[in-house]
């Protein structure tokens, strides 16, 4: 019988990296840059090819995403991502006071991680381009394992610099600067439980409006003051915004090749938006080849201080918004997924590949955003809501 220390060493050698990937996931899942705050092991070498499709609320968005990661001498890890959104929009916002349109957004990312002992440092760069918006983000991250590798503490910072344009208006040009600070912590609680905690502060400054959107206001009333008609004016947002978010995540291993994961996040910002979401996910391996996933997510938010579906008169206040993203609403997501897993023969150059399909059904219900397409007295239109289906079909290979 092998001495306990020897058993520990062997098991540790084979499982340490996987455990650290779990800790990394607890951290990375709540942060922007995939390698932003990992544990003291480099990310897995893998490549992914994904096709995504979103259909809901008059919007159809699809495209590919390719992600490749390569490690060098267990010290340096390079990653690259190429992503495309092809958008066809006839959303309620567009149909209310504009025309349907199509456009494309491309996003390119590069990242490098450097591992030294129990410390990981990362740099990342992301560029996003569409016809009327450009965004560049540079990120730095640092993380450290400690407490017998049961704990990981990370910090990251990202600077975003955006250019906002308006199609058909060459004279229009604005900028946005964005600073994001993140602290994250992951802790092994027991043989079956891992906890993750993340705190995020983001500050924006610049042109934060959507340059196409408008608010509506009452421009004609009857003698009783009842609104009879409305008109539109351009929306006006504050030029600064600071937000805080805290996320608490817990993963628990169940007895039958399965696990439960839970997340609770709260959010608040200087615009007066308070939000929270709760998610519960379940994953189970069925034999050596199949893995099934299911999840439910509930999200709710209150409206921004300067949001109104219908303002009482023109220029009713300094700041004006009618974006439904700033309104009071709830959403509920039900998601399912299946993966087929192939392990490589020992002589292969690859280790594993998976074929995956995930489908999410999302229901949005707005509490103070009305469907202005309906012919009804102003402010008496039915409340808006819609359903969306999100599909992710992807192939992954580990090497």
């Amino acid at each position: 019988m092998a001495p306990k220390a020897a058993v520990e060493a062997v098991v540790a050698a084979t499982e340490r990296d996987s455990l650290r990937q779990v800790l990394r996931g607890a951290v990375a899942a709540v942060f922007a840059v995939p390698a932003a705050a990992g544990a003291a092991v480099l990310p897995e070498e893998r490549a992914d090819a994904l096709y995504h499709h979103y259909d809901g609320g008059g919007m159809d968005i699809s495209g590919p995403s390719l992600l490749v990661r390569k490690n060098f001498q267990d010290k340096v890890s390079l990653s690259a991502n190429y992503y495309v959104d092809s958008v066809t929009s006839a959303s309620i916002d567009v149909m209310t006071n504009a025309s349907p349109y199509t456009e494309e957004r491309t996003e390119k990312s590069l990242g490098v991680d450097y591992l030294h002992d129990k410390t990981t440092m990362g740099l990342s760069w992301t560029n996003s381009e569409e016809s009327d918006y450009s965004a560049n983000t540079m990120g730095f991250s640092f993380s450290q394992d400690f407490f017998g590798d049961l704990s990981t503490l990370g910090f990251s910072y990202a600077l975003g610099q955006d250019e906002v344009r308006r199609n058909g208006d060459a004279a229009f040009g604005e900028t946005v600067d964005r600073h994001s600070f993140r602290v994250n912590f992951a802790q092994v609680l027991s043989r079956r439980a891992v906890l993750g905690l993340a705190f995020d502060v983001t500050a924006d400054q610049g042109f934060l409006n959507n340059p196409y959107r408008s608010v509506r206001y009452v421009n004609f009333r009857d003698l009783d003051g009842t609104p009879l008609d409305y008109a539109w004016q351009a929306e006006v947002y504050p030029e600064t915004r600071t937000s805080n978010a805290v996320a608490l995540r817990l993963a628990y291993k169940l007895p039958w090749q399965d696990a439960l994961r839970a997340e609770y996040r709260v959010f608040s910002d200087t615009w007066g938006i308070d939000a929270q979401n709760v998610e519960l996910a379940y994953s189970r391996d069925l034999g050596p080849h199949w893995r099934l996933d299911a999840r439910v997510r509930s999200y709710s938010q209150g409206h921004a201080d300067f949001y109104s579906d219908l303002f009482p008169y023109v220029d009713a206040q300094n700041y004006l918004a009618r974006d439904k993203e700033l309104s009071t609403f709830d959403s509920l997501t039900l998601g399912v997924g299946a993966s087929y897993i192939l392990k490589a023969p020992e002589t292969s150059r690859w280790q594993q590949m998976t074929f995956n399909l995930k489908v999410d059904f999302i229901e949005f219900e707005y509490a103070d955003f009305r469907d202005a397409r309906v012919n009804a007295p102003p402010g008496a239109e039915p409340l808006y809501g819609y359903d969306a289906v999100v599909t992710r079909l992807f192939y992954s290979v580990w090497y």
Partner: protein
Amino acid sequence: MNVLRLLAPAAAVMLLAGCGLKPWVAPYERNLLAEPVMSFDRDPVAGTYMHHVYQAREGARGAEGGGGGGCGCN
């Protein structure tokens, strides 16, 4: 600020937990934690996409994922 009020007790508990305690899960006891079903971010390319879907449609942001960029949400 609600968020900071919620964060402070959690941070205090973690600091206290780090004092005078030894790691309570030995390396050979961590095999269950290392299984893929335990991962919060098993497939980054798919997870990042869902974060983007939510970011474009919700007022909340942060503590989840995704970078800057336009939202295609008009």
